[in-house]
């Protein structure tokens, strides 16, 4: 077995860290878009017409029981057929957002179920419209009770965003592959990359914990 040489990899650490930025950007953007869609799906499932409820449930069931990679492939190949030409980044973003919408809708549905029924009455009695009640009272409460689950799914999305590399996106994994093929130190690169992902994830865990402390301390 040949020895490991980390020097060439560590020299390119700034380049890899640029990939971390893309990873975070992609994850944050698709989490945001996914959460927006999930909000709509969750309301549809809670109060929509029967057909709407069924649609919401079926959507989540299908998306959570098939691989995200295949979903992104389907989008990557099928969008051009529909005449939509977008960058690989955008394809992956769309795929991740649609996938996240399914998981986050499940989480929000649980959250909506935990909002005390009296909140709906209280908001109405104060004169809030249905829409205002959802935006000001119901969703904020659901988001707060489900904050740990949402944060957990965000972590999963950070890991899942590594699939973007397969479509040529220069995220952390994509750049790791680049560095591997120019330095021929692919194993070392992947080990460093693994450490970077772990550090990013641990940092996020810390950040969430801190956010929660500050939030609850303020209240």
């Amino acid at each position, binding site marked *: 077995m040949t020895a490991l040489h980390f020097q060439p990899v560590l020299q390119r650490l700034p380049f890899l860290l640029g990939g971390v930025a893309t990873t975070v950007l992609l994850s944050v953007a698709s989490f945001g878009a996914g959460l927006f869609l999930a909000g709509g799906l969750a309301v549809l499932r809670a109060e929509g017409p029967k057909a709407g409820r069924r649609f919401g449930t079926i959507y989540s069931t299908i998306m959570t*029981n098939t*691989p995200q990679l*295949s979903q992104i*492939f*389907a989008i990557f190949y099928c969008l051009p057929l529909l005449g939509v030409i977008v960058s690989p980044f955008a394809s992956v973003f769309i795929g991740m957002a649609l996938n996240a919408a399914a998981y986050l809708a499940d989480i929000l549905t649980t959250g909506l179920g935990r909002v005390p029924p009296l909140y709906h009455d209280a908001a109405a009695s104060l004169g809030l419209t249905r829409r205002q009640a959802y935006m000001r009272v119901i969703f904020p409460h659901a988001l707060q009770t489900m904050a740990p689950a949402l944060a957990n799914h965000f972590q999963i999305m950070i890991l*899942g*965003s590594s699939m973007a590399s*397969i479509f040529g996106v220069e995220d952390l*994994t994509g750049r790791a592959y680049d560095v591997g093929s120019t330095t021929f130190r692919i194993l070392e690169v992947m080990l460093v990359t*693994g450490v970077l992902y772990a550090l990013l994830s641990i940092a996020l865990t810390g950040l969430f914990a801190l956010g929660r402390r500050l939030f609850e301390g303020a209240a």
Partner: protein
Amino acid sequence: MIAFSHYDAALLARALWMTVVLSVAGGLAGLAGGTALACLRMARGRLFAPLRFLAAGYVQVVRRVPFIVTLYIVFFLTGMAGLDVSEVTVAIWAIGLIAAGYIAEIVHGGLRSVPADQIEAAVTLNLPLLARWRHVIVPQALPVIVPPTVGYLVLFIKDTALASQVGVLELNQAGVILSNRGLPTMQVFLAVLGLYFALSYPLTRLSRMLEKRLALS
């Protein structure tokens, strides 16, 4: 547009079988590894302290690394070590390593969910160690462990789609091949997604059913 031939069907069938093999073998490896890790973490005594620490560390780290990176590491590590293993073996190892991390966490949580007074009662009854596990700890932990474990198997099925990255011809890769060959892309991917769904959905249902049934008893 090229029509769907029986060669294509055969390719799809072979790929489906490969996905099943990867899922089952990877899942079993993860089950064995995860249970072992969880038991290590439960081991008492100073002698086990370093092992406990390593097991906990492994569980923490492996769940924070993308599957694709783990897959590459196993792939290039075996290559560099000069081990002559097939791509399929690499993929199974990688799935097993990741699965072990997740399952260890579930099993550990399940074992710890057994109330302390139950264990103390067993101790005061003079039950020997093995009997404590067999009659007190395991029966109470299993209902907590089994449903989420079955649920996680779905996650590992979905991970097998990445095995194509080290050259394994599994379901997702079959979709890419057929689509590149000029078959109608939309139908090809609907078929691929449908087959994944057919594998995963029964497990999702089983997990939910077990959760309900075991919660009752």
